[in-house]
């Protein structure tokens, strides 16, 4: 109070204006700022919850369609035990059925966990290859030819050297 009483009228006015500005700044920073921050956080949370709720309701409204499709694709959705071990066996069976000879199977690691890969090196005629690929596609497993490389075993030969990379999709 002594300090204020020593100030001139103009200095006192500046002092009061500064004090008011600092007070307003502190109130804004520490009270209103915090409250506005909390309000913004709540707004974001409300927005997220609303979106989630709308999505949930939307997907629940299409429940019948999903169930119908689930029934349709049910056999592919069923969980298999040891698909990595079963895959070479299936391919070997198909190769034998399609009369491919000298078949060699080599599982190779996949970079993603959604599929298993097996390399098939064999020999056979074109019709055997087509038969093999057709049977592969018609099976109950989600098998697919990822890569095929064919070349004649010898010049003008009907027997082909076959390299096929086969994948099995895993639906988890």
């Amino acid at each position, binding site marked *: 109070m002594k300090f204020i009483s020593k100030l001139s009228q103009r200095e006192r006015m500046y002092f009061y204006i500064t004090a008011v500005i600092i007070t307003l700044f502190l*109130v804004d920073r520490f*009270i*209103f700022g915090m*409250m*506005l921050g*909390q*309000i913004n956080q*709540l*707004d974001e*949370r*409300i927005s997220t*919850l*609303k979106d*989630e*709720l709308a*999505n*949930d*309701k939307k*997907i*629940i409204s*299409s*429940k019948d369609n*999903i169930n119908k*499709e*689930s029934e349709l*694709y049910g056999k*592919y*959705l069923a969980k298999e035990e040891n698909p990595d071990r079963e895959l070479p066996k299936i391919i070997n069976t198909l190769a034998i059925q399609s009369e491919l000879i000298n078949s060699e199977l080599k599982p190779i690691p996949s*970079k*993603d966990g*959604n*599929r298993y890969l097996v390399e098939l090196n064999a020999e056979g005629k074109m019709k055997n290859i*087509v038969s093999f*690929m*057709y049977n592969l*596609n018609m099976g109950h497993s*989600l*098998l*697919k*030819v*990822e*890569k*095929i*490389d*064919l*070349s*004649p075993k010898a010049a*003008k030969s009907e027997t082909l050297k076959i390299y096929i*990379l086969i994948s099995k*999709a895993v*639906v*988890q």
Partner: protein
Amino acid sequence: MFGSKDLLGIEIGGQYLKIIHLNNKQEILNWVSTDIRTLNDDGIVDFIRNYLREKNIKTVDVINPVPARYTISKNIELPSTNPAEIKQIIKLQAGHHSPYSPEEIVIDYIPIGVFRGGYTRIFLIIVNRDNVKRNFDIIERSGLRLKKMVLSLETMVLWYKDRSPSNSLGILHLDADNTDFLVIKEQKPIFLRNIPVGVEQLLYDRDKYVPQLLEEINHSLEAYQTEQMESLSKIVACGATSKAAEFLRQIPEKSNITVDIEDNLEGLKLAPGAPDIKGAASDLSVIGLAAGVVKYNKTHLDLTPEEVKLRESVAEKSRDIIWLGTLMFFILILFLSIFAQKIWMKNRMVKVLESESQKYQKEAAGLKGTKRKIGLVKTHFLRRNFALDALTEIHKCMTPEIYLTRLLIDDQQNSGRDQQNTTRFVLHGTANTTADVHQMADRLGKSDYFKDVKAPPTTPRTEINRDTRIKREVVDFEISGKLELELK
């Protein structure tokens, strides 16, 4: 600023102490008077304290009107029209107009008007500082806080100013122990004479004091006429008139002047439930004190001691600061309440949404998982025949003049490498002519399964048929391109 308080008027006269209590509507709540001839100042203080205790009065604004008998007044002319100069002149001349030294008096004036070029007529008022100090001490020692000390004569002028818009009006103010003869003109006092005869004397010895008072009134009228060079035609008699009616009726007979007699409580209102004070106040003037209290905030003169003025000024500033602080606090609270309410509402909304969401979350999560799996299966089905179909398409595009030495179809879309490079096909082979190669490349380019088909320059060579040993010119070629990812 915070609403008006009740007002308490205290008049400390020579023989009587009068107290009037008004509410904030300026209605009389109570009136009390006592004879103080036998009391010293301590006795007066005790009386006031007892009264406050008895009536349970705690917070009031105290107004102290100083009766006209304690003032010395003069109607004089000064050779200036500048208020500051006038103030200087009257300070210098203070000693000439009163028997007291300048330190012993409070001196002030009411300007009456400018007469003769450069001269101002003023109504000079001088009050003994001891009277002011005594009144202040008594009030403060009674536990009250003085708000303003005013002059009765000025508040009487303010009370009766509407009765004389332009003409002179005499006011005969009767009290128990004295009578004031006041003349006002154009709402300002121009003449005052105090006569030391009051209603009490009239009632005590009518034969002696009635003629004396009449004579004094006549003297006053003559003095006024001499001083102001005009005669009065009307007098308003006020104050303790109820027991002096007979006397007042004699004035017109003696001085050829009209007298309007006003009741003691004329123009005043009693608050609902207030005791009837008419009888209690019959010997004393109520109006002198009441006018002082009612008109205190309109007076030009202020006898309030400097320390009280300073105290009031500080209190006023403090009130302003407190008011401003309170206002800011309430505004802050208001904003905080609005924000707090918003936060509360939003928190409530979050809880409602969370609870609503929980109802659907589990079922929706299961369905989402199923949908995702179905999506993966569908995607697989869209692409799983691609290699076989592409092989068939290549076969369709080939002409009998072409045979292939290598066929590569690479449809690894999810290998993690660049899809543009991986989803490709490459054909190596031999054709009879370059035209055959281009024809095949064109066909492949138009197919739905391939795009960006390129056929680089062919390599001609001579081929010998192993069976016939016939030589022929053939071309080796390589056709490459990309696989169409989005099948039509």
